[in-house]
């Protein structure tokens, strides 16, 4: 086999449509007789709906209908389910639209639905709906929520505690900590973030009354699971009568994994009024309805022996889940968090516990990294403080505790079996790329001039490519985490690749085509990747958790292998040769006799022949289309070494990131350009968390950062130039040898920038600040230290 395209930076096949304004986003759909939905939302964080007066709104010209929650419930619409229920988890009731008599539980909760002939009129009508509420006190703090005397969101969940989840043996770990030479203790928060994919969520639904079939276009990272949830739990239209299409999706970062109320409301209305219906979120609506991320409060302790080896780690976390459990919420602060607490290090004993609480805030679920950034932040903050305590260079201290290359596969004490890695080589490369010793020297020189310059180092690991379905099931998942694919060779020799993965910016149409081009020896332009349509593609699981290449790509490899096998069979029959005497032509497609390339059946001949079926071996089915399901044997474990430099303006506290170096081991690389794009884009989100981004609520439950006027998104002029490089330790358990690349940038950058800021402030005796490191926070710390 030759690798002509895999490993090269092929330009993206999908780009011509995007750069010419031909992207197929849900909000672009226009259908005849289309009606428009707007949702009346709660201005209160916690209140009972006493009555809804829709008369004035209904009287407005152009208003077609107004629906309240009870009408949906009465028609059989179900509660929004939670797709990951850990043991003992109490799942709060969540209706798509809160009915009268029930409570709204966060600002933005749905109260009524307007349908009108234009979105402008729909908004007029929303304004004209009168809702009377009895407001209650709110709770917006994860830790306070479970204390006695706090407002209770759901009557059946006392103390607002949805579940407690623990891993490890606490007494053993506490004993080890008390026997340790040093114990580093730290209280920290990992603040709430708002994902803010640039495309706001949208849904369009069309009911075919003749066939009783529903088509729903929705901005989802995973249309198949959405169809399943709609069919089995919420909308009630069976799967074979429900087609879910996610065309081009404008970013997700996790926020478009989940099943949202509007995805239920829109098709429900379309059927009810028998017209196509569109709903598009405004950005203000997105802020108060898209699931948020992070929001942990943590106490952690790390033990060290006299030689500076880690002895034990204890982590206690209060995770805010918001008002309801979003679809995969309980996965995030449990398996995706505690199981990553070993980091890159040999930590013999780890104990972790999470208290998952409900508050009067937008539900919190996966956001880029999802649990793993929170874990990396805890571990790495402790590691950095430990190095400081022992007065060691942060890289030297890390190396002292690394899992060594010969120890893979490495069983951590927190369930994960790391597949492969070489952390020393990773850091060798990072030190070389960043000219680390010169950076350190420059920092010392700057410090001598009184400047606040800091260098931050992060060494992170994540578990990507979820997940072996058996493991997921044992941990509480309601679904499996394999992926499906079909490689369909058409009679003319053109190839369609159908995948259950679904790109929302990653470049699947290019990367998957590269794989198939190499697997079948056909040109890129003869291959089309099809995704995002439940009518076209067998069941699939979608894209999140940096899984598409490791799981979806592996399924495609399996399909392509089956196609080659069948081609060999056909060729053997037609060439009257034994299969073992034939070889597949990876450079041009087709099959030839070993040592005699002229005795060949071309890719075209074999494709056509499979369909004419004039000359197939006895018993072989006609056609050339192969399906495969790939269930991963394990997660993959990408790892990274990031180094950055910041300088703080002493007068204002403003932090600027001046230099950034990222070395990532994502295993084998299909398309380096795409991988770098993922890493750099992820770093921007990580820098955003470290320095500016904060989904802040006040005590009454109002979101203070509810628009781009108040939620600070990274912009071009505050981003540094980012230098990237890679080391490669292939994953041994998937056919491509790949690991995930989508989330590591975010995970690593948050830590690296945090450490650089803390390093800049260290000479002032400042040990820890919580993110985001806003100018005021940094400035205040400087004043207090002085």
């Amino acid at each position, binding site marked *: 086999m030759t690798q002509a395209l895999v490993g090269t*930076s092929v*330009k*993206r096949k*999908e*780009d*011509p*449509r*995007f*750069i*010419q*304004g*031909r*992207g197929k*986003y849900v*909000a*672009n759909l*226009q259908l005849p007789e289309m009606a428009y939905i707007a949702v009346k939302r709660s201005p209160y964080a916690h209140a009972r709906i006493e009555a809804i007066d829709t008369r004035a709104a209904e009287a407005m010209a152009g208003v077609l209908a107004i629906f309240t929650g009870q009408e949906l419930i009465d028609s059989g619409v179900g509660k929004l389910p939670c797709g990951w229920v850990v043991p003992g988890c109490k799942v709060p009731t969540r209706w798509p639209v809160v009915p009268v008599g029930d409570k709204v539980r966060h600002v933005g909760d749905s109260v009524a639905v307007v349908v009108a002939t234009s*979105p*402008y009129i729909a908004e007029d009508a929303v304004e004209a709906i009168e809702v009377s509420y009895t407001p209650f006190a709110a709770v917006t703090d994860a830790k306070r929520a479970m204390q006695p005397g706090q407002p209770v969101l759901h009557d059946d969940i006392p103390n607002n505690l949805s579940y407690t989840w623990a891993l490890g043996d606490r007494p053993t770990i506490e004993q080890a900590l008390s026997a340790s030479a040093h114990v580093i203790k730290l209280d920290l928060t990992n603040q709430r973030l708002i994902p*803010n*994919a*640039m*495309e*706001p969520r949208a849904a369009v639904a069309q009911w075919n009354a003749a066939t009783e079939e529903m088509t729903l276009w929705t901005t989802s990272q995973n249309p198949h699971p959405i169809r399943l949830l709609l069919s089995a739990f919420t909308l009630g239209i069976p799967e074979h009568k429900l087609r879910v299409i996610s065309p*081009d*999706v*404008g*970013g997700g*970062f996790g926020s478009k994994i989940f099943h949202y109320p509007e995805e239920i409301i829109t098709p429900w209305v379309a059927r009810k009024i028998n017209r196509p219906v569109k709903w598009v979120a*405004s*950005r*203000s609506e997105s802020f108060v309805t898209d699931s948020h991320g992070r929001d942990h409060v943590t106490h952690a302790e790390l033990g060290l022996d006299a030689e500076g080896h880690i002895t034990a780690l204890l982590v206690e976390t209060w995770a805010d889940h918001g008002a309801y459990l979003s679809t995969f919420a309980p996965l995030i602060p449990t398996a995706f968090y505690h199981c990553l607490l070993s980091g890159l290090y040999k930590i013999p004993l780890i104990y972790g516990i999470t208290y998952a609480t409900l508050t009067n805030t937008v539900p919190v679920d996966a956001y880029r990294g999802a649990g793993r950034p929170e874990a990396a932040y805890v571990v790495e903050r402790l590691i950095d403080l430990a190095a400081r305590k022992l007065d060691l260079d942060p890289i030297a201290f890390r190396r002292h505790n690394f899992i060594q290359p010969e120890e893979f596969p490495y069983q951590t004490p927190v369930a994960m079996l790391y597949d492969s890695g070489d952390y020393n080589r990773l850091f060798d490369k990072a030190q070389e790329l960043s000219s680390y010793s010169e950076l350190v020297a420059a920092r010392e020189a700057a410090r001598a001039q009184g400047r606040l310059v800091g260098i931050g180092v992060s060494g992170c690991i994540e578990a990507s490519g979820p997940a072996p379905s058996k493991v997921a099931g044992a941990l509480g998942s309601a679904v499996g985490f394999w992926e499906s694919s079909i490689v369909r060779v058409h009679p003319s020799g053109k190839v369609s690749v159908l995948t259950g993965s679904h790109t*929302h*910016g*990653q*470049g699947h149409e290019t990367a998957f085509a590269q794989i198939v081009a190499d697997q079948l020896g056909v040109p890129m332009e003869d291959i089309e990747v099809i995704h995002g349509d439940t009518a076209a593609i067998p069941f699939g699981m979608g894209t999140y958790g940096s899984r598409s290449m490791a799981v979806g790509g592996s399924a495609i490899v399996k399909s392509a292998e089956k196609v080659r096998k069948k081609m060999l069979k056909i060729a053997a029959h037609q060439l009257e040769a034994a299969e073992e005497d034939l070889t597949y032509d990876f450079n041009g497609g087709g099959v030839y006799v070993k040592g005699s390339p002229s005795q060949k059946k071309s890719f075209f001949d074999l494709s056509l022949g499979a369909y004419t079926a004039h000359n197939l071996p006895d018993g072989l089915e006609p056609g050339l289309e192969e399906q495969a399901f790939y269930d991963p044997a394990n997660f993959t474990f990408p790892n990274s070494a990031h180094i950055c430099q910041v300088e703080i303006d002493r007068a204002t506290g403003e932090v600027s990131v001046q230099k950034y170096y990222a070395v990532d081991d994502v295993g084998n690389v299909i398309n380096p*350009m*795409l991988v*770098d*794009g993922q890493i*750099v*884009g*992820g*770093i*921007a*989100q990580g820098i955003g968390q470290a320095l500016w981004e904060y989904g802040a609520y006040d005590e009454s439950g109002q979101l203070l950062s509810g*628009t*781009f*006027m108040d939620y600070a*998104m*990274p*912009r*071009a*002029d505050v*981003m540094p*130039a*980012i230098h990237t490089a890679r080391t490669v330790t292939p994953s041994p358990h998937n056919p491509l040898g790949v690991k995930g690349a989508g989330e590591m*940038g975010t995970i690593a950058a948050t830590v690296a920038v945090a450490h650089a800021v803390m390093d800049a402030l260290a000479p002032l005796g400042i040990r820890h600040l919580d993110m985001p490191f806003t100018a005021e926070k940094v400035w205040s710390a400087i004043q207090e230290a002085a």
Partner: protein
Amino acid sequence: MTAINVVVNGKSYTREVEPRLLLVDFIRDTLSLTGTNIACDTSQCGACTIHLDGQAVKSCTVLAVQADGSTLTTIEGLANGKLHPMQQAFWDQHGLQCGYCTPGMIMAAAKLVEENPEITEAEIRHGLEGNLCRCTGYQNIVAAVAQAAKA
């Protein structure tokens, strides 16, 4: 309703519009030119950037009636037989991922380069402050604008 006449991508349109209709909705819904996207409601993100009488503007913050008599170019009208150098550069430099901010980003960037052909990296970064991208970290966008400036 108010009658307006505009030339969009070289084609003249006369339409009756409500005074409150935003120019971006006129472009997307009335003219079905959906390449121009909407990503915020506070004039911050720049996804809706078009050229109005030769200037880059945020079409979500202009009323359609204000554009009466004007000449507009949207992303659909930027290419002239072949890709505009800025479009080509975004493709070459991997300056987009999900593609949603891309039309506005390209339209803003095209004007930056037109007004300042000798543009520096710092000027590019400053000049793109009105356009948000959540995918790329801007690095390849900056590279694309630099490439187009040299084209």
